[in-house]
């Protein structure tokens, strides 16, 4: 059954910074919260449900966890959800906010995300090691030097082996992102790049080049999801989640297909709940940690047949105004923003902009009323959480 009109997204805000050397992490969370609430026409006093993941300060400190940021913000809560699923967590949070609102547990749900890996000099590799501490599989993996880039590299290598996908095809995903980012004044990389620029950039981990990788940026974003009665009292476009899905992909004792992510199940569940198909989607935000991430997700979500991802993304098919599926029209994590190495929040925000008609004019999808948001949190090549959300303007 669709979750349509059970709750509405009324506030969205992306922090303009990409280098937060002078903004401490708690303040970043406060700034994005203030931005999204102002966008909605609400204040912190209206918030009775708060949703955050492991990027809030104090998460791993004994006894603090998310309470620290709740105190900093001065929230008076009836509902708290700290679902951690890395970059995909915020997509889960929207689905969970709908459930909490429908169950009467809160009326105004605030979701924040922020990070400052540039300011803190914290590499994804270091985060990967810290993430693995105490995990059962760590002793069977860390000796082999897994890092983000080589774990995604193995996915790309296998896709090339099974389906003949080429580096040029992967490069089209970055090219499309750069075409969008040139119109975004806040984007970290605004220069339009060519296929040659991508495949001639240095190899990071075979077969991925530097320009196949997303950027590392500071910043963050926030969303406000509210009860229908609250939404009707505000002067904002009515945007409602209509379907959601989640799945944890893991290695299943060593019996797995590296090209089948959790998106296979999360996508099918979201489409079924929303009662729509990939053909109906007018705009897609897909977490683009690497070019290969997008290609595999497009197949897994059903936008094209398995093995056809390379062909699907070619020839500008993901460029707004040119191709069949405008994707990440803010420039995505490849060019615009990837705050805290967690791409889910910015994906949600650009989908809301598209549905409101508030995207940059050059990339706005005319009459956009149905959008998909999808994220992979963790490692595409091993264990990860996949979250899919379908949003509709009503």
């Amino acid at each position, binding site marked *: 059954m669709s979750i349509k009109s059970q709750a509405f997204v009324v506030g969205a805000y992306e922090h303009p910074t990409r280098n937060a050397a002078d903004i401490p992490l708690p303040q970043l969370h406060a700034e994005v919260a203030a931005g999204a609430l102002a966008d909605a026409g609400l204040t912190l006093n209206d918030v009775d449900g708060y949703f955050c993941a492991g990027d809030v300060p104090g998460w791993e400190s004994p006894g603090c966890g998310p309470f620290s940021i709740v105190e900093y913000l001065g929230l008076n809560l009836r509902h708290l959800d700290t679902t951690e699923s890395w970059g995909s967590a915020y997509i889960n949070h929207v689905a969970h906010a709908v459930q909490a609102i429908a169950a009467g547990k809160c009326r105004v749900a605030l979701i924040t995300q922020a990070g400052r890996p540039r300011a803190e000099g914290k590499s994804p590799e270091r985060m990967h090691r810290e993430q693995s501490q105490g995990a*059962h599989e760590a002793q069977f993996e860390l*000796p*082999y030097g897994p890092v983000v880039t080589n774990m995604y590299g193995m996915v790309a*290598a296998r896709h090339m082996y099974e389906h003949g996908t080429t580096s040029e095809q992967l490069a089209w995903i970055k090219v499309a992102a750069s075409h969008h980012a040139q119109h975004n004044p806040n984007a970290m990389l605004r220069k339009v790049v060519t296929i040659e620029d991508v495949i001639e950039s240095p*190899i990071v981990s075979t077969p991925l080049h530097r320009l196949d990788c997303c950027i590392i940026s500071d910043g963050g974003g926030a969303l406000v999801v509210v009860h229908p009665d609250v939404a009707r009292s505000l002067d904002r476009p009515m945007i409602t989640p209509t379907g959601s899905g989640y799945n944890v992909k893991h290695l299943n004792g060593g019996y797995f297909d590296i090209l089948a992510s959790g998106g296979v199940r999360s996508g099918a569940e979201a489409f079924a709940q929303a009662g729509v198909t990939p053909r109906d989607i007018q705009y897609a935000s897909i977490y683009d940690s690497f070019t290969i991430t997008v290609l595999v997700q497009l197949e897994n979500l059903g936008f094209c047949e398995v093995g056809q991802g390379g062909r699907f993304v070619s020839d500008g098919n993901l460029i707004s105004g040119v191709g069949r599926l405008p994707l990440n029209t803010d420039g995505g994590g490849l060019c615009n923003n990837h705050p805290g190495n967690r791409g889910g929040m910015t994906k949600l925000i650009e989908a809301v902009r598209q549905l409101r008609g508030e995207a940059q004019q050059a990339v706005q999808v005319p009459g956009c009323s149905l959008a998909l948001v999808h994220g992979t949190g963790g490692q595409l090549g091993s264990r990860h959480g996949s979250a899919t959300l379908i949003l509709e303007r009503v």
Partner: protein
Amino acid sequence: MTTDTPPTAPEPTAETDEFWAAANQGRLLLKRCLGTGKMFHPPRTYSPFTGRSETEWSEASGVGKLYSFSVTNRRGTPHCIAYVGLAEGPIILSALVDCDFDTIKIGQNVRVVYVPSATGQLVPMFKPDTSDSTGPT
């Protein structure tokens, strides 16, 4: 020889001591689920297929096929992470050594070798297997 800095030493637990002791003797162990007969990895007390603790150690042949790999330049030394599909079934994370990374191909036969980690604990890795007698499916 293309091994770079010694591998990070594994930290065994009570569930895995036997695996690492066997590795020091040049033997690759897997766990077998007695409910399904399937071998699995990483080894643990409970079967990921049945959720039951009826599992036993079983020695693997040490041969398999390269499922995927990625070569990274680590401070001037190439490092090759790999997934290896063992002849017994499971695909395991490992690394390739003792070969020219420019010539390796997914699908080729590989064989286990043991490489000392930072503490001296031997860690199973793989190299191309050129012998004809071992052809896992």
